[in-house]
């Protein structure tokens, strides 16, 4: 049984002292493995009932709201080496999944390899959250929805939604398909960087491109095999002339998930011609997404030769239908403007433009 938040008001101590019911407290098991193989063994053994625990800044609220859907927490904090940020030879930057967002945001290695990643990490949550929250946790952030990330009492007022195991989606009623939003900041930057992630599972290690990590499904946003966890993230050495930027718009700049986040990377010739570009958006769908239409539109041209208005329209069109926004037309407009801003900042042509 999930917790009933109203009990917290009735009793200051006892069962509800942490905002969780007794049944919840008794039902949760905590595991503290010392190696990756021990961790993935535990995760595989308990299957859907287990969840890996990194910084906990997303997991603990889910636990308190009774939406975690797991009874076994497998802490990764004792597993050695997962906090390191290091150069692999003189080439790629390899970041352990448990490196804090603060460590990523302030790392000179990350700044040099992908400025957009340092920026996205530095704009995730608040400084307090970044001191606990990790890059791996952010990359594996669960999708969110108005009808899901709510207290038990709130959710009890209607049918369980699909993400909570029910039959209906209360947002996308027409298609009846869960459209919970993926709202982590760093994956957009990682897509632009061409990052790869190391997955450890019961059958060993494998590396995949960051884009392959995401299923696109609101219900289960990560395309992980049973027992698999993200252990490391690799940022390839940037090409000469490669520059990146991340632009974020949130209700409260200081703390919120993005309404939209746009990362852009451009390979710039000395005369300002963009040889190649990458653009990725977070906060729009159930996964972070690349916008190839925009990338193709700027490739081989100078940004000034592509009209801002045209570019914004291409970005808006590329985004497709949007859900879970107070004002969908506004968000569509925003996506266009932010794409232009992100590309302009990456290309160093942002003077006189918004800095958000």
């Amino acid at each position: 049984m999930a917790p009933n938040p109203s009990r917290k008001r009735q009793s200051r101590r006892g069962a509800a002292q942490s905002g969780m019911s007794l049944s919840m407290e008794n039902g949760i098991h905590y595991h503290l493995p010392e190696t990756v193989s021990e961790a993935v063994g535990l995760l595989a053994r308990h299957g859907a009932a287990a969840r890996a625990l990194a910084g906990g800044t997303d997991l603990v609220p889910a636990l308190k709201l009774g939406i975690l859907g797991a009874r076994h927490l497998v802490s990764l904090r004792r597993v050695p080496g997962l906090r390191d940020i290091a150069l692999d030879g003189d080439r790629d930057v390899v970041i352990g999944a448990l490196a804090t967002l603060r460590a990523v945001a302030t790392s000179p290695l990350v700044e040099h390899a992908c400025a957009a990643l340092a920026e996205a990490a530095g704009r995730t949550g608040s400084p307090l959250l970044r001191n606990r929250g990790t890059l791996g946790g952010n990359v594996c952030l669960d999708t969110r929805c108005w009808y899901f990330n709510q207290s038990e009492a709130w959710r009890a007022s209607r049918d369980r939604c699909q993400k909570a195991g029910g039959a209906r989606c209360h947002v996308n009623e027409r298609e009846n398909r869960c459209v919970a939003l993926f709202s982590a900041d760093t994956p957009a930057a990682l897509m632009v960087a061409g990052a790869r992630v190391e997955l450890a599972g019961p059958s060993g290690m494998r590396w995949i491109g960051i884009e392959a990590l995401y299923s696109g499904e609101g219900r289960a946003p990560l395309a992980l095999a049973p027992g698999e966890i993200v252990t490391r993230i690799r940022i390839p050495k940037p090409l000469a002339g490669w520059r990146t930027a991340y632009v974020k718009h949130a209700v409260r700049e200081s703390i919120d998930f993005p309404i939209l986040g746009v990362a852009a990377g451009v390979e710039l010739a000395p005369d300002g011609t963009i040889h190649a570009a990458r653009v990725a958006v977070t906060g729009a769908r159930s996964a972070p997404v690349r916008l190839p239409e925009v990338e193709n539109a700027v490739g081989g041209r100078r940004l000034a030769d592509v009209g801002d208005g045209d570019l914004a329209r291409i970005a808006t069109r590329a985004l497709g239908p949007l859900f879970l926004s107070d004002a969908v037309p506004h968000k569509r407009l925003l996506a266009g403007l932010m794409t232009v801003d992100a590309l302009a900042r990456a290309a160093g042509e942002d003077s006189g433009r918004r800095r958000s």
Partner: protein
Amino acid sequence: MKRLIQLTVNGQAHDLVVTPVGTLLDVLRDDLGLTGAKRGCDLGACGACTVILDGRPVNSCLTLAVEADGSDVATIEGVAAPGRLHPVQEAFAVHGAVQCGFCTPGMVLVTKSLLDECPEPEDRQIREALSGNLCRCTGYVKVLDAVRAAARRLRAREGVR
């Protein structure tokens, strides 16, 4: 299943029995009687529960106590000797940066942590450091005044030594 953990809180070691889902905030307030860290939103958005965990300010409401095993915790109760005020606390009082006081312990700890690391912060850095701590009474102007004053005061004190 309950677990035994060890925490050093304000310099004093404690052995504690905790449940897997108990937070550091629960342990501080309910087991150790240290009620300076407040339960505000309980979801990591307000910063009222801020404590310094192994040298860095964090939301204690989002930190599972089992995850803090072996850590060093500093709370508002430990920033000054009993009956005395830390220069940051004094600056908050003098500059009227306290109204209801609910956010104040968190703000003081974040400020102390900022000034320990960066004795001469620019306004931009002060705003950034405090951006995870919400105040619903005074607004933030007097808080900024207090942080600037505390920085001056601490620098002057360092200079005297």
